[in-house]
């Protein structure tokens, strides 16, 4: 095909909004702005209309990834319903209303700016504040000025379809818990700071002498503050230790509580008795540092739970139930299996079920990522969360709430997020072993110093207990994970939980989804066999469709009406593929006045030109139309399949006249990435819904073993494969979420690749926002580095503990030394965490 130059020039037309290539059929001649889809055009016009073009500059500055706009053109009528208001809207004392909405499509800093400009776009909106992490926007508006449905429609037009944020009560509870924890940290910090200041005075006294009355004053005040610190923020550890004892599980709280208790009691006794050392400075610092470590851990676990809530937000909370001919609105909890619900155009389907009456088109992009609506008629299944775009349908309920596909997905995600990261469990196990070790060492120290007197022996034993407290251990792991996750986020890798990194650092099975992950997802015409003269006709017919295969044909064969050098089809190589020279299809070509084209979804195109019947499509579709296949073309068809291309037959009247081979080309970095992953010890597998022969050919190109390649896989089978692979070890699944969201959730680590469905983004543990497989290889390498850093840090902190224990045994520990050693170990851990290049500069 000698049309590279022209194709290149054509492909350089980029959508003004999202920057992706504009399909040939949608290019408007002479227009300064071009758009790849209606959604992008709508959003762009809205942004222009409100004078918010800075959005594009911001997006560049934030180095964010652009994706085609998500607009659904829903009407959001139910947002104005009183029942909706009862559930989701609060009325503030000044008469304005406030609500929280979950927004789809918020993936960059520029989105925050755009959404928060809502008051400028919709008069009546007083304030809009977006929480980027949770994709939740809190809107305050004047209801007499504008209705919530209008606000919702505007957000949708901007590219952020809104949903009511459910479970406000759970979120409130969690927010209050988080705030309580922060307050504990604040109090612990205040206590530690003040006790430290007092301790400095006492240290000074150690060296140059201090009057007894001041020494007494400072010791008593230290004790008072120390007791506050131990009783209030410190109670977290005591409660944890008690729970661990009661349930006989290992937990890091045990040695911590032991140290705090021993030091606290000894310090109190010594202060009252007026003799001996006090260690409140070290104790309060311990409480503070360990609480901070715990806070990091909680935040990470929070991110995973947020994702589950997003999934629940995506389905409606009310449904229109048909009862004895009358339609009434009911909360989703009241809907039972077997009920009949009515779904109007522009509404989301509230349940899983079969269509009983009506025909319509359903936008399933939420679940599958496919934005092209799918036609449904009686007997076909629809899922909760999808959008009914065309006309009213009635659905017999098969599942509601947690039993719907979305609900089950959410349950999967929740289950996997509840399990703690193995490395954290490792720290807990170490902690349990610490307790007998510390007690043994303390007993040994006591015995060793007993000869010098019981008082002195107790002192040294207590000192031993305090310095063997695993402070750095409790701090290291959460700190390193948090820093690594933050770094990864800046490079476009969004990681939801530490478990993912831990799994990625070891070996296991890596399952790759084919389309869009390994391949570019863009189909091109690679081979043509048969009658060349039909090419203009094919181009003319395919230009009526926006299916990726149709676009591939038009790209390769030229535009209908364009007079190139004869039926050979390709565009002149002198780069004359200027937009202005391309006429629009239709009016100026007399010979195509009687063209009727009918698209059959998933199969092909059936057309009638001046009475001649033409079928272009999959072999099954064309053969079903009764076309005879000449043997040489049949051989070509086999050859095309063997070459890992998709065969498309072109039949005129009753004969197949040509066979085209279309291919989804491999991503340039795929081979290198798979090679690297194999070297690192991963068992690679390929799962594809495509024809097995095509999958096999791609597998060969990647150097995979034939047994590892599976073609013709249905979405349910992908899930089964993941379960089967899990029996052999850890499984990582990489996919773009189209139809494999459940598999992503079921794998030990699910990685969603650029361009996935919203539901998949919630189900996956990691999201690679930059296209290509190179980020995957980088991710695996970085995961190893993170784990190595953790092990090194754990080793260093243990080293500190051992050194301190040795010093304590020798009786050399005093409050000054203890107060120096502990922050020193923590600072070393911090230094290692920040200094080592985890998600480094590659």
């Amino acid at each position, binding site marked *: 095909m000698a049309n590279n130059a022209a194709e290149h020039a054509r492909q350089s037309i980029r959508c003004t909004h999202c920057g992706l290539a504009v399909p040939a059929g949608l290019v408007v001649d002479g227009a300064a702005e071009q758009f790849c889809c209606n959604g992008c055009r709508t959003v762009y016009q809205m942004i222009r209309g409100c*004078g*918010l*073009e*800075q*959005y594009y*500059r*911001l997006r560049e*500055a*934030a180095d964010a990834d652009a994706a085609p706009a998500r607009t659904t053109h829903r009407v959001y009528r139910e947002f104005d319903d009183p029942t909706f208001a009862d559930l989701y809207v609060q009325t503030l004392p000044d008469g304005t209303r406030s609500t929280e909405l979950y927004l789809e499509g918020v993936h960059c*800093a520029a989105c*925050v*700016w755009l959404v*928060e400009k809502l008051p400028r776009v919709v008069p009546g909106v007083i304030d809009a504040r*977006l*929480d*980027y*992490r949770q994709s939740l926007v809190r809107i305050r508006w004047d209801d007499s000025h504008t209705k919530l449905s209008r606000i919702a429609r505007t957000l949708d037009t901007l590219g952020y379809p809104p949903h009511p944020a459910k479970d406000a009560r759970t979120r409130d509870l969690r*927010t209050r818990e*988080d*705030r309580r924890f*922060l*307050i504990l940290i*604040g*109090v612990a910090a*205040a206590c530690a*700071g*003040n006790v430290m*200041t007092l301790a400095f005075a006492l240290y000074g006294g150690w060296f140059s002498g201090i009057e007894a009355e*001041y020494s007494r*004053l400072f010791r008593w*005040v230290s004790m008072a503050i120390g007791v506050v610190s131990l009783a209030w923020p410190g109670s977290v550890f005591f409660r944890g230790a008690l729970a661990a004892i009661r349930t006989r599980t290992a937990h890091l709280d045990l040695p911590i509580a032991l140290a705090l208790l021993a030091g606290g009691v000894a310090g109190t006794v010594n202060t009252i008795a007026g003799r001996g050392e006090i260690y409140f400075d070290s104790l309060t610092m311990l409480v503070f540092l360990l609480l901070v470590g715990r806070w990091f851990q909680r935040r990470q676990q929070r991110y995973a739970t947020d994702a589950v809530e997003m999934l629940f937000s995506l389905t409606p909370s009310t449904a229109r139930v048909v009862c004895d001919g009358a339609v009434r609105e009911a909360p989703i909890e009241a809907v039972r299996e077997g009920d009949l619900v009515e779904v109007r155009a522009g509404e989301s389907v509230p349940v899983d079920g079969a269509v009983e009456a009506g025909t319509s088109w359903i936008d399933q992009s939420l679940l599958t990522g496919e934005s092209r609506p799918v036609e449904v008629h009686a007997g076909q299944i629809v899922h909760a969360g999808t959008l009914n775009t065309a006309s009213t349908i009635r659905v017999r309920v098969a599942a509601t709430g947690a039993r719907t596909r979305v609900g089950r997905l959410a349950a999967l995600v929740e289950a996997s997020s509840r399990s703690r990261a193995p490395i954290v469990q490792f720290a807990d196990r170490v902690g349990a072993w610490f307790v007998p070790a510390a007690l043994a060492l303390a007993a040994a120290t006591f015995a060793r110093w007993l000869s010098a007197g019981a008082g002195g022996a107790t002192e040294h034993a207590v000192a031993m207990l305090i310095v063997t407290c695993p402070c750095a251990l409790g701090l290291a792991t959460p700190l390193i994970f948090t820093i690594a996750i933050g770094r990864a986020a800046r490079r476009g890798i969004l990681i939801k939980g530490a478990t993912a990194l831990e799994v990625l650092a070891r070996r296991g099975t890596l399952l790759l989804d084919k389309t869009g992950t390994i391949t570019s997802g863009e189909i091109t015409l690679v081979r043509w066999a048969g009658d060349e003269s039909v090419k203009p006709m094919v181009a003319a017919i395919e230009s009526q469709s926006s299916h990726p295969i149709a676009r591939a044909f038009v790209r390769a064969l030229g535009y209908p009406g364009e007079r190139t050098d004869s039926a050979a089809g390709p565009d002149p190589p002198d780069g004359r593929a200027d937009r202005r020279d391309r006429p629009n299809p239709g009016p100026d070509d007399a010979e195509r006045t009687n063209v009727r084209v009918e698209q059959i979804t998933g199969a092909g195109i059936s057309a009638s030109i001046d009475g001649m019947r033409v079928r272009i499509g999959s072999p099954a579709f064309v053969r079903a139309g009764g076309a005879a296949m000449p043997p040489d073309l049949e051989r070509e068809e086999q050859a095309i399949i063997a070459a890992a291309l998709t065969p498309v037959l072109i039949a005129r009247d009753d004969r197949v006249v040509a066979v085209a081979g279309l291919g989804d080309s491999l991503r340039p970095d795929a081979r290198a990435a798979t090679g690297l992953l194999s070297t690192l010890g991963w068992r690679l597998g390929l799962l594809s819904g495509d024809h097995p022969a095509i999958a096999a050919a791609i597998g060969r190109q990647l150097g995979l073993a034939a047994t590892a390649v599976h073609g013709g896989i249905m979405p349910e089978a992908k899930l089964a494969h993941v379960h089967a692979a899990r029996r052999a070890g850890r499984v990582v699944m990489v996919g773009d979420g189209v139809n494999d969201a459940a598999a992503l959730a079921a794998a030990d680590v699910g990685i969603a690749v650029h361009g996935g469905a919203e539901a998949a983004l919630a189900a996956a543990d990691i999201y690679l926002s930059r296209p290509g497989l190179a980020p995957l290889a980088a991710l695996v390498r970085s995961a190893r580095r993170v784990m190595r850093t953790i092990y090194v840090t754990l080793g260093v902190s243990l080293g500190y503990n051992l050194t301190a224990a040795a010093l304590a045994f020798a009786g050399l520990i005093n409050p000054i030394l203890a107060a120096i050693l502990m922050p020193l170990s923590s600072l070393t851990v911090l230094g290692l965490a920040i200094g080592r290049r985890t998600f480094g500069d590659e």
Partner: protein
Amino acid sequence: MSIVYVLLPVALLLAIAGVIAFIWSVRQGQYDDLDTPALRVLHEDADAATARESDRE
């Protein structure tokens, strides 16, 4: 009488005042979202440019 007997309580009172202020700000929700404010840093320039553009019209 040593000044320390004045300084110490004053220092403690200051500390307590600080803690109370912190507790107040946490209850106000100022610490609920620590990620988005980092992104809002970029907004100043965009706001200024938008204002300039609309003035020109």
